[in-house]
């Protein structure tokens, strides 16, 4: 029995969003009478941080403290339309809609403040701490709260904005089949180090090193959290999870979480991540979505590392001990493909 070390590499260019019907999302932003803002969306936060990121984006665009922004989302009965949380599109598509809505609300806020200060709205700016001041004369200022109260109770105006992001629809070219499906790509490269036991066929992942280019990491802790969790899911898909181990036969299919295998807290893989920031032109403050690509490249990297370790090329997932052992037997023994690295 020998334990063979293997190293595998994979990289990914991941399209953000899609272009079926233009991939639109809408946002509404309005001020409450106390100068705090509500962002209304229908986009789902299923743990990826949609509410945190859209809150940051709205706060940045409005020029008000992040504490003064509330995101009300995920009620499709009352919120504006959103295509949904998929295709790693949330930050990019919804964030862009939020910027447009918040910008319109900001213009109305500055116009209302201009009326109160008796100046031109174009001479006004925000300090991000809840004040609107005259550029070059910061002592002439009014709070966002006073502005909202004046707008609501004196001027009879709302401070509100509407935003939509729509990608120009791209039809398939009849002659070439070409279409432009996305507006931007995120990128990643990933190296997996693992060991394969040639007696049991068990694969143990020892370390993952990855580099992710996500535009700008609008919330670095959320990005890191998503990448760590996503890589776990990648390991799980590569080595453990299946509903039909002998597809298309249903033999030995798991029926519950006892027999549906996933790595547990005892199989945590150390993962070193480098986040590369290249702000994307059409993205909200440059941020693209880490989304699905946090899991995807882990699978081919593991498959490549298994090949590197014992010379077995598994062409179906998951890479179970049985498949590894059958491969080793078919090759007449383990055939390591050279020193990793």
């Amino acid at each position, binding site marked *: 029995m020998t334990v063979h070390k293997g190293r595998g590499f994979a990289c990914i260019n991941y399209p953000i969003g899609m272009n079926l019907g233009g991939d639109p999302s809408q946002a509404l932003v309005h001020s409450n009478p106390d100068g705090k803002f509500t962002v209304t969306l229908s986009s789902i936060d299923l743990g990826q941080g949609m509410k945190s990121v859209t809150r940051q984006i709205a706060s940045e665009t409005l020029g008000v403290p992040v504490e003064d922004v509330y995101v009300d989302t995920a009620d499709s009965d009352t919120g504006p339309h959103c295509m949904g949380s998929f295709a790693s599109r949330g930050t990019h598509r919804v964030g862009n809609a939020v910027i447009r809505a918040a910008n319109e609300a900001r213009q109305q806020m500055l116009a209302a403040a201009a009326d109160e200060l008796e100046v031109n709205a174009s001479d006004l700016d925000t300090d991000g701490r809840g004040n609107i001041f005259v550029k070059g004369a910061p002592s002439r200022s009014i709070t966002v709260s006073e502005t909202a109260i004046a707008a609501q109770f004196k001027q009879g105006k709302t401070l509100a904005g509407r935003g939509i992001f729509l990608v120009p629809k791209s039809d398939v070219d009849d002659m070439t089949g070409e279409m432009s499906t996305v507006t931007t790509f995120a990128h990643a490269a990933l190296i997996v180090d693992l060991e394969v036991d040639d007696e049991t066929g068990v694969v143990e992942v020892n370390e993952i090193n990855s580099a992710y280019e996500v535009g700008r990491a609008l919330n670095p802790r959320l990005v890191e*959290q998503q990448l*760590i969790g996503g890589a776990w899911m990648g390991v799980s898909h590569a080595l453990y999870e299946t509903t039909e181990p002998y597809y298309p036969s249903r033999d030995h299919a798991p029926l519950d*979480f006892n027999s549906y295998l996933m790595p547990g*807290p005892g199989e945590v893989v150390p993962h070193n991540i480098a986040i590369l920031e290249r702000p994307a032109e059409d993205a909200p403050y440059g941020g693209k979505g880490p989304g699905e690509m946090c899991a995807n490249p882990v699978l081919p990297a593991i498959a490549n590392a298994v090949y590197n370790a014992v010379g077995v090329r598994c062409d179906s997932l998951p890479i179970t001990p049985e498949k590894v052992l059958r491969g080793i037997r078919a090759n007449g023994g383990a055939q390591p493909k050279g020193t990793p690295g």
Partner: protein
Amino acid sequence: MAKKPISFVLNGQDTSVFVEQGGNLLDELRRTVGDLSPKFGCGQGTCGACTVLINGEPQLSCLVLAERVEGQRIDTNGGLAEGPDLHPLQKAFVEGFAAQCGFCSSGMLMAAKALLDRNASPSRDEIAEAISGNLCRCTGYEPIIDAIVVAAENMRRRTT
């Protein structure tokens, strides 16, 4: 079938309810008592989302007959915070980004509390073992283990 009156101590409060005979504790806590902090995940004792403490021991409330807890002490995630002050475990989970969707958090927190109550300085392996009955789909477990380590440190500092 007639309902059965039972009394137990839930998060330090004397609690008396009429429960369905043969009903499970999770259903009774959620529907009858109104404590929604234990979650219904699989309903067959394999995911850990419904973990509560019975006399300090972590138990899967979906597999426990409600009638069995007569006179027992039950603790749920709903009772961890003291007023506005989060429990050190809850605080460490929030600050350590140990939750994404949050559905497993309630059970994770109770499994972790049971561990820290009997072992104030657990190793990472001991933590992994203590939460090995709780499934998480989002985090990859590492942030959860990290958060429990941090909470244990903070709790030891508090008591010394």
